[in-house]
């Protein structure tokens, strides 16, 4: 049962929504969080034009894309990348939710993140997150954005679990995922060859109840 005070506050906030600036009203609501705003980051729309520019910029850093993806890493041209992301956006399957990651203090776009394959009879999805601005690595931006993606997965899409895969040579990511509550579920042995060595693919998963217990 809601208290009388909170009901009044709720009515007041509803009135504010209809008459005034939505931004203030939503944060006034007693029970709902703003799904897209975390402590350090905000999830904003995936814009193919902006993503193309970012991909061109970030792809000059071969290490970033090697940490992010198993495809051969390549410097990318902004116009061609924009075309690629436009085409991909037109073919997006229902159940794919790409976002850009923004640092709210200066509105800079710092990374990308996505939930994929979320619509199936099995109530689970894959998540991916990457912070392209390397001077921001190790400062909690990726974890904050990943937590926003998980909140979206568990409290808006109402999924049962979320999967992710990363690489043995990315221990910083593995530690961050462990801290959020992801559980190691296995290693695909020697499935990558990079820098002249074989590495495992590391797979982790988190169930809704695990994430909710960690975020109570």
């Amino acid at each position, binding site marked *: 049962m809601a208290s009388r005070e909170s009901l009044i506050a709720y009515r007041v906030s509803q009135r504010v929504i209809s008459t005034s600036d939505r931004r203030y009203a939503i944060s006034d609501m007693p029970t709902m969080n703003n799904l897209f705003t975390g402590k350090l980051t905000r999830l904003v729309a995936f814009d193919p034009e902006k993503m193309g520019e970012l991909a061109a910029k970030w792809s000059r850093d071969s290490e970033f894309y090697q940490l992010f993806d198993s495809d051969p890493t390549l410097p990318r041209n902004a116009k061609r990348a924009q075309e690629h992301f436009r085409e991909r956006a037109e073919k997006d399957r229902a159940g794919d939710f790409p976002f850009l990651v923004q640092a709210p203090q200066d509105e800079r776009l710092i990374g990308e993140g996505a939930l994929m394959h979320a619509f199936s009879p099995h*109530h*689970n999805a894959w998540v991916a997150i990457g912070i392209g601005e390397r001077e921001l690595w190790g400062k909690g931006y990726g974890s904050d954005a990943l937590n926003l993606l998980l909140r979206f997965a568990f409290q808006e899409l109402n999924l*049962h679990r979320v999967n992710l895969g990363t690489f043995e040579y990315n221990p910083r990511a593995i530690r961050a995922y462990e801290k959020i509550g992801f559980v190691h*579920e*296995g*290693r695909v042995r020697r499935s990558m060859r990079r820098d002249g060595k074989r590495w495992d693919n590391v797979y982790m998963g988190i169930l809704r109840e695990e994430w909710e217990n960690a975020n109570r």
Partner: protein
Amino acid sequence: MLQQLFEGEKIRFAAFDAEKDAEVFSKWTHDPEFLRLTEYEAARPLAPFHIKKKFEEMEKDAHGDFYYFVIRTKEDDRAIGFAHIRWIEWNHGNARLNMGIGSLDDRGKGFGSETMQMILRYAFEELNLYRLSADTFEYNEGAQKFLLKHGWQCEVRRREAVYRDGRYWDGLAFGILAEEWQAANR
């Protein structure tokens, strides 16, 4: 002399022939057990039209990098199953295998084992891959035993990743390395 890759003792590998095979494949999709043992997607019967469309979509999705075989009996040239390799990462020598024997009457006769031996040889001695992956489900004990028997190892157990018959089951990922296959076949 090079070895014959498509001729086994009891079976052979053939190309998918939309005119002939779609009809047979459509019949298999009317058996929900076959679908639920091999597919992650919701089980549903597919008309020959949709079988053809699905094949074309898989081919397109793989950007042409799609090695698909229909398994036919040598005795009476019947289509009894399929085996395919896709999602090849050439830079890492890594790819994914999927296979199935369609009708219950054709299972337990060694057709699957021969298919596995031939597709592994194709993966490791023609595509020159370094490893293969294959997925199955906690409830498919037959597939798990089959994979272990052929030298695969269970590498990933995705907890509660599949919801069927009112409960969650683990999703399993198996793998085999070329060197393991070579050691066992020398």
